[in-house]
């Protein structure tokens, strides 16, 4: 497609727009990149005044932790193949070995297996091989880039961050599953009904979306803390205390998320022509059967996008989880606030940085895999308004 001459842009405009874009990309990526670099350095390097010291980490290297040229080259090759195989070999293996009905389970199983394999090879096998190689190769094997994983070991091992990670996974999995189940039903109902009631429900949802979360939590707290006494007349002696329970938090987060979910799913359902379910109805399906057999199979892109947003809400939440969960059941984000109180030495600070990077890593992977869906989903949700 050739652009008409009048629509073509002058060189100055193209240059300035490109420069602006480059500036924005640096601005967007720099803070995240920088904390990732900091998390691998010894405290002296991580908070050094010179950027070069932070990147190359002389103090970390002096401490005996570092990468040689060989290490870097070898590591990059392994990462390159790991990424390539993740997009070629892994899907092929899943296709072959997975029974056709259990595709989703197969994918989850395959992805977990792949991740575990990668961690074992990258952090277990490679240091052994490279240790031998480095000692043989002399100057090429001498460390040039200071790098240490001790803060990650401290965070995940000694500070038992994996517990918070598991809690986070539990809460987000619950939020996503329930949000989508309840949300798709409601979204479909609202999209296919043109009544005034549907309109008012949507407006009500919009108002609920606007409520600050602290308002809601102020309502839950006393009820949740005293819930065993309140529920005893109904449930008998076994009445649970809702305070501190992950599943109670899941219910709360799902409800907070519902207004957004139904708005978004409704606009996806509106994009699907109503003739499709009318045809199914003519063929003798009930409304629910038409929804399940005809509409849902074409709705997957919308469901995935909405699921991503539910995931983000559950994963990123600080306020609700920090107030409604007790210390043992804390998810990752409020748990990081615990580092603030401990933060007396610089080592603690770098450990907090490492914990922060650990929280960010899954999100990073998520954007990488689902970038297309996020963009198309957001736009489909928004343009229809």
């Amino acid at each position, binding site marked *: 497609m050739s652009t*008409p001459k*009048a629509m073509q*842009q002058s060189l100055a405009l193209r240059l300035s*727009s*490109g420069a602006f*874009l480059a500036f924005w990309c640096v601005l*967007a990526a720099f*803070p*995240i990149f*920088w904390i990732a670099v900091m998390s691998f350095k010894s405290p002296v390097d991580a908070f050094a005044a010179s950027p070069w010291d932070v990147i190359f980490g002389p103090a970390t290297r002096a401490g005996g932790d570092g990468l040689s040229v060989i290490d870097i080259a070898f590591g990059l090759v392994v990462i390159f193949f790991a990424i390539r195989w993740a997009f070629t070999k892994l899907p092929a293996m899943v296709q072959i070995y997975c029974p056709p009905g259990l595709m989703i389970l197969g994918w989850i199983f395959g992805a977990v297996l792949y991740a575990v394999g990668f961690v074992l090879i990258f952090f277990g096998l490679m240091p052994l091989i490279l240790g031998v190689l480095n000692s043989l190769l002399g100057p090429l094997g001498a460390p040039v880039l200071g790098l240490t994983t001790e803060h990650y070991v401290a965070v995940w091992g000694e500070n038992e961050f994996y517990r918070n990670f598991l809690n986070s996974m539990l809460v987000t999995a619950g939020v996503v599953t329930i949000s989508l189940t*309840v*949300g798709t*039903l*409601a979204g*479909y*109902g609202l999209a*296919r009904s043109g009544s005034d*009631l*549907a*309109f008012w429900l949507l*407006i009500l949802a919009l108002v609920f*979306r*606007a*409520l*600050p*979360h*602290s*308002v809601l*939590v*102020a*309502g*839950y707290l*006393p*009820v949740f803390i005293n819930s065993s006494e309140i529920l005893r007349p109904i449930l008998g002696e076994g009445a649970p205390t809702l305070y501190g329970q992950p599943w109670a938090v899941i*219910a*709360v987060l*799902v*409800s907070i998320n*519902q*207004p957004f979910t139904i708005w978004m799913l409704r606009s996806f359902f509106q994009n699907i022509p109503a003739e499709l379910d009318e045809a199914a109805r003519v063929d003798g399906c009930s*409304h*629910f059967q038409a929804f399940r057999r005809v509409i849902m199979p074409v709705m997957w892109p919308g469901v995935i996008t909405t699921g991503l947003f539910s995931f983000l809400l559950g*994963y*990123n939440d*600080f*306020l609700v989880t920090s*107030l409604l969960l007790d210390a043992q059941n804390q998810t990752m984000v409020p748990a*990081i606030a615990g580092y603030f109180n401990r933060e007396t030495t610089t080592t603690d600070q770098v450990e907090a940085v490492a914990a*922060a990077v650990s929280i*960010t890593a899954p*999100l*990073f992977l998520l*954007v990488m895999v689902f*970038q297309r869906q*996020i*963009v*198309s989903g*957001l*736009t489909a949700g928004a*343009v229809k308004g």
Partner: protein
Amino acid sequence: MKFKTFAAFVGPSVFMMLLFIAAPLVSVFIQSFQVTQPILERVEVETCTPGFLTQTCTTETKTVPVLDDNGKTITQTRWVGLQSYQNVLQMDKFWEAVSNGSWRDIMQIDFWKALRFTLSFTLLTLPLVIGVGLAIALAVNNATRAIRGPIIFISLLPFIITPVIGSLSIYWLFVGDGILTAMMERWTGTNISMFAQAWTIELLMYFYRVWHVAPFAFVIFYAGLQTVNMDTLESAVIDGASRWERLRHVIVPHLMPLIVFIALIHLMDCYRVFEEIVGFRSQAHVISLQWLTYDFMTPDDAGNRAISRASASAMLTMIGIVFLLILPLRRTWRDHKGSAH
């Protein structure tokens, strides 16, 4: 669709929203007029310490909570009317400060301090987010196709990152001798500490919020740009419209519904600013309305939560958001009316 089918589809969702959003609202409203306190009684306690020859005994009256059979404190809920609101708003101090004409005195009261920050935060970042988002969208739309994917990926990062972590990552760049503070000190030759005074923290918060939300605005505007009518653009060119005029008279009007949408979402989200305060640890200098409620609800050293005050401040926060949303909601209502005809 029959009402019964409609109800079956929408029911679960509406039920959850009523149970977990509407019901807490009502209970917050009621709580804000009540105070729950443990019942206290005064008892005489005699403590004896072994002394030389005889014991030394002292009697004193202590205030202790009354316990029930299970050893739990008995509490009593009293109706206090607007007392909690008064505790939050501190109107007497407020009017005194107003009559003195002292802005500084008003800002000593937590609620007014939080309100001032929340409103300026919401309203100042709004045009910035829309402007920056639009600029990035236009620039990406200009870029060659091959590099758009990576740029969108990088642009999405600030939006997707956990808000607490995002603000922390900026905090660490500026804290103490953080890398950017060190750089600025080298340029200016003066000693800079970004987290020692309120205005620099506030500036960083504005920056953080724009950094965090502009990608969201960008993605939506970018999609809107894909649907701009090329014919209109071309006829504008033929009519001799400059690039700037085309932007003003064709592209921006086309994007107007999206701009309203972004503004609406931004008003809602910005008004509940909270994570920045945790991330930047700015409690001592800058607080927001939602943080005020959070602070009331966090147990103090004795393990008590000021639920009543929290409810009052939550209700006041809510009144604020209603005011902010009246305009956009009226527009939605008019659109609905308009589309019905």
